């Protein structure tokens, strides 16, 4: 990584680890069994630059939502760190912490539960404005009007309760609440996955417009590959709590360098009915996050796995400009390479990690 001349990334996630302990029964405790934990994040590395949209994609259980929640400090990491503007967010205290909470905003997936049902839109937006003192009290009504306009909602929306809106409109309210405090970063967790297809497009269009207008940095977490491809400058693919491939959108989608990315892309149904396949793209299912596989996390499902994959967990290594993948088959996805022959040639490396 030649980061010498590059400006510091706005957000930098380094070896982030998050475990959720399982509730332990009294019998287990008496028997002295060690507490089990869901390994949600297992050493995530990712950088987000100012003004870019980074898509985080993966299937359920890959840790993408946990990562989003860690970014806004709804969860604290068990190990590793998240740097914001170069500083470890865990060290923010008092006024600095409040400023961080203002500058990094989250938009939630569920348009029905993410707004307080007993507050009017005016109160929801006004509260964010007054708590963070981004505007003097006299200017708050004007700012609320501005925000509603920004997310293309009618002005009379201010006096209504959330239940009076459709799902798409509620997501707009959620966006307005996040934008009220003039943040630098928007973390969008499955922003449109609860919405109808025709409404999804409206919200996606709005997000794209707002990002241009307000120069926002966006972390877009989603399971929908087409959406992530449409929105993101760069994409990170997660599997079992690790980023297994990250790269510029175009490169990653047209020439994936990790077998899981390729399987994921092949599994997503093609929108062209003339290009149908009859063979499933991926075999098997996700292993339990309670018992992670030894070595590469994908080895239980990978058609190309060989000895080294069961012994050593690969780390992200460069594959092209800004393109990195965590796979021992460094030639995977290259047009000339035949994975089988590569596997035969690959030297057994000493155990590290």
């Amino acid at each position, binding site marked *: 990584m030649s980061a010498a001349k590059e400006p510091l990334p706005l957000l930098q996630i380094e070896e982030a680890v998050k475990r959720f302990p399982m509730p332990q029964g009294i019998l287990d405790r008496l028997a002295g069994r060690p507490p089990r934990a869901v390994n949600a994040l297992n050493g995530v590395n990712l950088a987000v630059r100012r003004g870019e949209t980074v898509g985080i994609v993966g299937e359920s259980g890959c840790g993408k939502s946990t990562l989003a*929640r860690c970014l806004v400090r709804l969860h604290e990491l068990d190990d590793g760190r998240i740097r914001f503007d170069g500083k470890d967010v865990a060290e923010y205290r008092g006024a600095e912490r409040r400023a961080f*909470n203002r500058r990094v*905003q*989250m938009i939630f997936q*569920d348009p029905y539960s*993410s*707004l307080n049902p*007993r507050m009017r839109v005016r109160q929801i937006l006004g509260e964010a404005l007054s708590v963070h003192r981004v505007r003097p009290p006299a200017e708050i009504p004007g700012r609320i009007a501005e925000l509603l306009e920004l997310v293309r909602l009618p002005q009379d929306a201010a006096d209504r309760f959330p*239940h*009076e809106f459709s799902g798409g409109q509620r997501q707009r309210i959620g966006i307005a609440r996040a934008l009220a405090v003039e943040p630098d970063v928007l973390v969008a967790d499955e922003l449109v996955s609860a919405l109808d297809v025709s409404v999804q497009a409206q919200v996606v269009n709005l997000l794209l417009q707002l990002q241009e207008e307000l120069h926002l940095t966006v972390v877009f977490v989603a399971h929908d590959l087409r959406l992530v491809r449409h929105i993101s400058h760069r994409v990170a693919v997660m599997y079992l709590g690790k980023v297994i491939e990250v790269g510029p959108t175009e490169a990653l989608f047209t020439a994936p360098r990790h077998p899981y990315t390729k399987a994921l892309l092949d599994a997503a149904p093609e929108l062209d009915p003339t290009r149908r396949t009859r063979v499933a793209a991926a075999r098997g299912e996700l292993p339990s996050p309670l018992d992670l596989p030894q070595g590469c996390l994908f080895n239980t499902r990978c058609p190309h796995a060989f000895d080294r994959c069961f012994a050593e967990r690969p780390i992200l290594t460069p594959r092209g400009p800004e393109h990195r993948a965590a796979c021992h088959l460094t030639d995977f996805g290259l047009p000339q390479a035949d994975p089988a022959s590569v596997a035969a040639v690959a030297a057994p490396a000493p155990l590290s990690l």
Partner: protein
Amino acid sequence: MSTTVSSPGTGRRRRLRLGRLPVTLIAGGLILLASLVLAIVPSAFAPYDPIAMDYMAILSPPSWAHPFGTDSFGRDVLARVIHAYTIDMQIAVFATTGPLIVGVIVGALVGYAGGVAEAIFGRIVDAVISFPFLVLVIAIVAVLGPGLGNMYIAVGVIGWVFYGRLVAGEVNVQKRLDYAAAGRAMGYTPGRIIFRHLLPNAITPAIVYWMTDMALAILLGSSLGYLGLGAQPPAAEWGVQIADGKNFMSTAWWISVFPGVAIVITGLGFSLFGDGLAELLRTKK
């Protein structure tokens, strides 16, 4: 909490319209309103002084002069039933409001904090509900001495637990919803999240229970009055009156029956009002 009702398609703040209110709320409200008026100005309605004895009319059955009859001291039962509203409505309010406030605050904090606080609170709840409520109250009053004041203390020491349990459970559900996470991600203080966001969405069951509890409090007050541990004779109180009549049940049923009817009607008022309130406060989805 807002008491206005809003319907889709209108942005205006809507006044409550009588026709849109639940029938149970209106019926219960009318009974309670009447009870309240009787409690505040009983002498405006009572035909006699409640403790004036008339030895010329001892144990006289219901008549035009004494619609509910008279008791063994010749006191007018109607006047005593009406004057008892003052004490019994006071019991309903005083014996429940303190527990409501304490229970709601403790429940909200415990429900939000979870973990150890919730575990400790859970044990307290288990301890309290494993005893019959009445027996526990009687035990405490027996230690402190009879009288209304001590009864309030006894009920207060135990009663908040029931509110706390309701609110803690509901807050526990609400805090997992995304709007609570949104508040935390916004950097709102726990106090604001608990009392401004979670509590308005969590308090409805406690408010509804409060109404039932007021009816139960009247029953409790009457029971203690009957046992001689609550309101003290010659004060007019329904439980005391029923106790007064217990030796005359076969010959002068009216002494006990009319206060009993008053208890039933007031209790009905509270539970109807509570049901109506539950319907009104239900969150729209």
